[in-house]
């Protein structure tokens, strides 16, 4: 029941927010998101990490005549992503307080509505239910990006929408095919899919049908072309939702519906997938170095980081997959923090152009500290969250194939280059007329950044809080894959 409540509450709250006129909507939305956070923490407190089966299970027939279930539950893998979602959404709402968007009730209702889709994706244990929530999460963020976005938003967001729907239609086709392979009256339950014994050839094409959907969402090179423009155009909250949480849908989808469902297909194509992921790591980093727009720097850095996470997926060893889990959290936290800092800068001085800035640190010491910590987390300095994840991921890739690990390791150097370059030019140097009147963080901005900074250190210093939650589930997943 708790899982169902976690899914339903944001949707109900969204309807409530729609009824609130004017700028009061954001307060109601923030309150609703805090309630959801409490629900998430309650789930965490009552979660038994040693049980590999999904907990707080709700299993009801949904389309009884076709054997489709409304089956939702939380295991160690789901829990981390649910926690990430319930933690980030209130911060994203709070981060949008100062932007005074037009039609605020629709804006904040859409964010909450998207949360329903996200939690649904992370807890669904029936393939069609998963697909259902997958698309439910997409529609709100499309409207957020398209209605409150910047220039060229219509074209850019439409490309994003068509691209992702196109990919997910393949996933749907694969699900329907798998559904008909299940014995008896057919079932789309996760366990029924895991139990299937399919020939290598079948798994080979099924792999691509599923992989394309997840790869577009993450995005993995060469399916990334929608990403930089969409991140740049979307309003700050939309970018945070897309990069902080939504791309994890793709990674989570691969963990739940790709690796264990078509293990033979994965072993056939793992090398190709890894190479694509590693190309993405290098490609994203090199392009990020050349960007002048802060948002684009972080957008391309995200391609690079996600490439490493995707590579970890296909190593199929414990370090790699645990690295995926912890890096999903770290990346979500860092990237949301960085996009928020960029939004603060843009709100203050009206530009994101790196060349136009300089010397901000003299006026805003507090922001400098937060920015630096988040940036160091992103470049994976020891003691920060990024280090734990990247270390585990690189270790996993290295164990899979040494040269791949070596190439992927370049990301740490390149990451430091583009991040420090941006940080240095924006924050240091001499003040100019644009950055002259820059003011330091306000209370509500601190309220967003401090929890993020705390998390950077928490994961960096004591990753076991989170690693131990997912470890049994990840080991169980590996058993299922290697059955």
């Amino acid at each position: 029941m708790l899982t169902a409540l976690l899914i339903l509450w944001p949707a109900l709250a969204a309807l409530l927010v729609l009824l609130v006129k004017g700028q009061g909507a954001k307060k109601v939305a923030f309150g609703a998101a805090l309630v959801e956070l409490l629900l998430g923490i309650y789930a965490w407190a009552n979660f038994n990490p040693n049980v590999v089966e999904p907990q707080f299970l709700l299993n009801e027939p949904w389309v009884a005549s076709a054997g489709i279930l409304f089956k939702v539950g939380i295991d160690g893998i789901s829990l981390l992503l649910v926690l990430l979602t319930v933690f980030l959404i209130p911060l994203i709402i709070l981060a949008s307080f100062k932007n005074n968007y037009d039609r605020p009730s629709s804006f904040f209702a859409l964010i909450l509505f998207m949360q329903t889709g996200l939690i649904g994706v992370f807890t669904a244990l029936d393939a069609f239910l998963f697909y259902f929530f997958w698309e439910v999460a997409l529609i709100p963020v499309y409207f957020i990006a398209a209605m409150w976005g910047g220039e060229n938003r219509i074209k850019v967001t439409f490309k994003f929408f068509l691209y992702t729907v196109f990919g997910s239609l393949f996933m749907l086709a694969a699900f329907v095919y798998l559904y008909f392979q299940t014995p008896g009256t057919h079932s789309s339950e996760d366990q029924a899919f895991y139990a299937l014994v399919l020939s290598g050839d079948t798994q080979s094409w099924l792999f691509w049908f599923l992989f394309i959907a997840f790869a577009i969402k993450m995005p993995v090179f060469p399916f990334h072309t929608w990403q930089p423009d969409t991140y740049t155009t979307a309003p700050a909250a939309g970018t945070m939702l897309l990069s902080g949480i939504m791309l994890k849908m793709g990674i989570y989808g691969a963990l739940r519906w790709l690796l264990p469902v078509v293990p033979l297909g994965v072993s056939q194509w793992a090398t190709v997938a890894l190479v694509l992921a590693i190309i993405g790591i290098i490609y994203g980093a090199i392009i990020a170095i050349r960007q002048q727009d802060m948002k684009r720097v972080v957008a391309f850095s995200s391609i690079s980081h996600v490439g490493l996470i995707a590579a970890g997926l296909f190593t199929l060893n414990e370090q790699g997959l645990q690295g995926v889990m912890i890096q999903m959290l770290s990346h979500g936290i860092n990237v949301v923090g960085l996009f928020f800092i960029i939004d603060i800068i843009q709100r203050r001085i009206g530009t994101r152009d790196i060349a136009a800035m300089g010397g901000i640190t003299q006026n805003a010491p507090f922001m400098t500290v937060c920015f630096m910590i988040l940036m160091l987390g992103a470049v994976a300095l020891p003691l920060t969250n990024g280090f734990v994840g990247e270390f585990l991921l690189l270790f996993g890739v290295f164990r899979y194939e040494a040269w791949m690990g070596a190439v992927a390791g370049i990301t740490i150097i390149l990451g430091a280059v583009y991040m420090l370059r941006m940080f240095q030019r924006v924050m240091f140097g001499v003040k100019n007329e644009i950055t002259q009147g820059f003011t330091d963080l306000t209370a509500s901005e601190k309220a967003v950044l401090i929890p993020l900074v705390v998390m950077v250190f928490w994961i960096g210093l004591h990753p076991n809080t989170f690693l131990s939650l997912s470890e049994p589930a990840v080991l169980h997943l590996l058993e299922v894959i290697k059955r």
Partner: protein
Amino acid sequence: MTSIILLSIFGIVNLFLGFMKSKRVLLPIVMVFLAVALAAAVRDWGQLNTYFGNFNTMMNMDNFAVAFSSVMILSALFILPFSRSYAVGENANLAEYYSLLLFSLVGGIMMVTYENLLMLFLGIEIMSVSMYILAGSDKRNVLSNEASMKYFLMGAFFTGIILFGIALLYGATGSFSLPIISAAAQALEPGTAPLLLMGLLLVLVGITFKVGAAPFHFWTPDVYDGTPTIFTSYMSTVVKTAGIAAFYKLLSAAFGGVYEQWFPTVVAITVLTLVIGNVGAVAQTSFKRMLAYSSISHAGYLMIALTAFNERSENAILFYSLAYAVATIAAFGVLKYVSDARGSNDYEAFSGLGRTNPLLAFVMTVAMLSLAGIPLTGGFFGKLFLFSAALEQDMVWLIVVAVLMSAVGIYYYFRVIIAMYLRDAVAERVPVDSLGTFTLISLVVLTVIMGVLPGLFSGLL
């Protein structure tokens, strides 16, 4: 069966009501008529009524027929509220139009209850003749006249083809009755019965025309465009549902045994319809014409279930017809208000609707999402059930075509959403009456219920 008798009587009574001075009372009365007919139809569920020995085994009101008649009557009930503005104007012939609508419903119900090809023919004719007149009901509009003329000429021609086909079938089997034709068709060696196959082909062609499937779809865009919006929405929902159900019934009740003989033809029609409908819709600048092409493409989706032809087909067709009808009526309803106020059926007319009329824009968005088959709406499960039926027969390539065409569909359905929310308003708020608002909200609620609790409607048959 009661519903046919009631609707016929109501139609005649309604003609006399036309003598009344006030035209305003007609709409509520006709809606009550339809509600009564709907109740009568639903009451027949599972009853196996045998009036007059099923009219000498001419018709059979089984659950299949009950379900589809209910969908048709319900669709008509949802469409009528949007005709309110007609009563306000100086429309002298309102009672006649309503009566024709009721009579065409009688024809539609006959098309899903027939057990005898003569009844199929009568049903098609009763329905079509009413529609020829309704297409031209906007008498002073050249386009409406053109629509009526085109529809009538082509429709009469294809009626002739159906009749010819029925005659050949009679020649091959010696009967009009579906069970006898079925037995005779199975007894004949494949390939040795050119008369039977020719007859079947001609009837197929005729029905293909009536449901607006390619390659006999050419009338659709012009006729849909010229016909007054109310009757366009009636044509694209009720007439289409009746046609597809009749098509399915013909294939299953009479020619189920010779599946291999008609499968290639039907599959070719399906693929052509999907491609032409979707690709044609992309190029349109008029929203109404886009909906015309979209109705062609949906005929194609529905025909996927015909080609699959298994125990999932009936339910899939029923669910999809309902989801499609509800979404289409909502779209046409919004279109009617917008085009009445802004004088255009183009996408541009919708610009900024999200600001001036948030409710209309929301209704339209839900309708478009449903037609595009995006989850949370009935259209998603409709497509899922149709595709499941086909995949059960391992027709993977057909599904690949259908999936690609669905992606194309998203493109043109989203154009209006983009216009509504992302373009600046071109005009003032569009006025909407309260009955219309209520109907639109009901349609949205029904679409979402079908999308969240599909179990309520699937697996009925």
